[in-house]
């Protein structure tokens, strides 16, 4: 997979561009090694309120509150955190029709060195399919920034969570 990037942007810069294009102004994060540079960019942006949280499920709650306060919320997370967020995504976001952009480092896929990442790596798309939560995956010829802003547009229009899944290969050009 070699997604075409926006101009000469690095993977982190292209995702950040998409976040800015979508006018996301509230972000919670739980780190992943692949998200390090992106989290720094978000932290330094004066127009984004960034709050590190302790756990992804907690982040779903904080983002729901931010949406109710008029913000455009996103969560930066690793796919392992999907496992602890499912009840909140269903009984908060799906129940009340609350949008959320999830920017996810997808571990446990091709190129993964840590065996413990593999089970959730393989379950991630199945869990999203089961929950009817749409997800975007970068492909050849897709612009990652466009993909991110389209994901937010869909979340906002359908009033539901939408994920962007960014696999190990995507981050290789950092």
């Amino acid at each position, binding site marked *: 997979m070699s997604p075409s990037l926006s101009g000469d942007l690095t993977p982190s810069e292209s995702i950040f561009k998409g976040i800015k294009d979508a006018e996301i102004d509230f972000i919670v994060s739980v780190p992943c090694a692949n998200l390090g540079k992106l989290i720094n960019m978000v932290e330094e942006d004066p127009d984004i309120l960034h709050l590190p*949280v302790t756990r992804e499920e907690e982040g779903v709650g904080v983002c729901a509150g931010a949406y109710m306060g008029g913000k455009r919320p996103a969560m930066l997370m690793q796919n392992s955190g999907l496992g602890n967020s499912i009840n909140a995504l269903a009984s908060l976001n799906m129940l009340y029709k609350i949008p959320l952009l999830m920017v996810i480092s997808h571990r446990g896929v091709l190129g993964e060195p840590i065996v413990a990442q593999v089970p959730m790596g393989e379950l991630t798309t199945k869990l999203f399919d089961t929950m009817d939560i749409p997800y975007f995956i970068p492909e050849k010829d897709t612009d990652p920034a466009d993909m991110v802003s389209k994901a937010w547009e869909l979340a906002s229009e359908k009033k539901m969570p939408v994920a962007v899944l960014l696999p190990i290969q995507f981050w290789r050009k950092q």
Partner: protein
Amino acid sequence: MKRIDAINEIVSKTKATDALLVANIGIPCKELHHVCDMPNNFYMLGSMGLASSIGLGLALSRPDKKVITIDGDGSVLMNMGTLATIASVQPENYLLVIVDNRAYGSTGNQPTATSKNTDLAEVAKGAGNNEVYEVDTSETLRETLSSVDNGIIVVKAEPGNTDAPVIGMSPETIIKRFMDISAL
């Protein structure tokens, strides 16, 4: 005192300060709805543990509004990281009231860890919150609420529920009328 007594005091505070009020899952929501249904009440019907997190997101997004969350001991124990996250920002407009009746009130009053050795006020302080109060009567709660707009109040209460009926409103209605106020 029981949870319902705390809810009565919190409702008075909410009205006096025109606050946004987030209510915890289960009987707390029903009791608040029964005591005083207002558009600025958000009834969290699912997602156990996240009332304090929703309130935090609201408070950070609307620094011009006061935000109060009614939470419970069982729910805070389920999302204890929330106390650390709140401590990391401590918004001046955010007040978290934890009604600690030492029981999972909505599921039959099974004892929680606070019925044994856990002290939530100490946990909140240890997590780094500077404004933590502990009260055990309606009078001291009222007194504290009259002078405090932010931080965490742990209300030591007895277990016990009223027979407040189920909320008839749909989730869509609850959030729409709430956001007519909260998202302006």
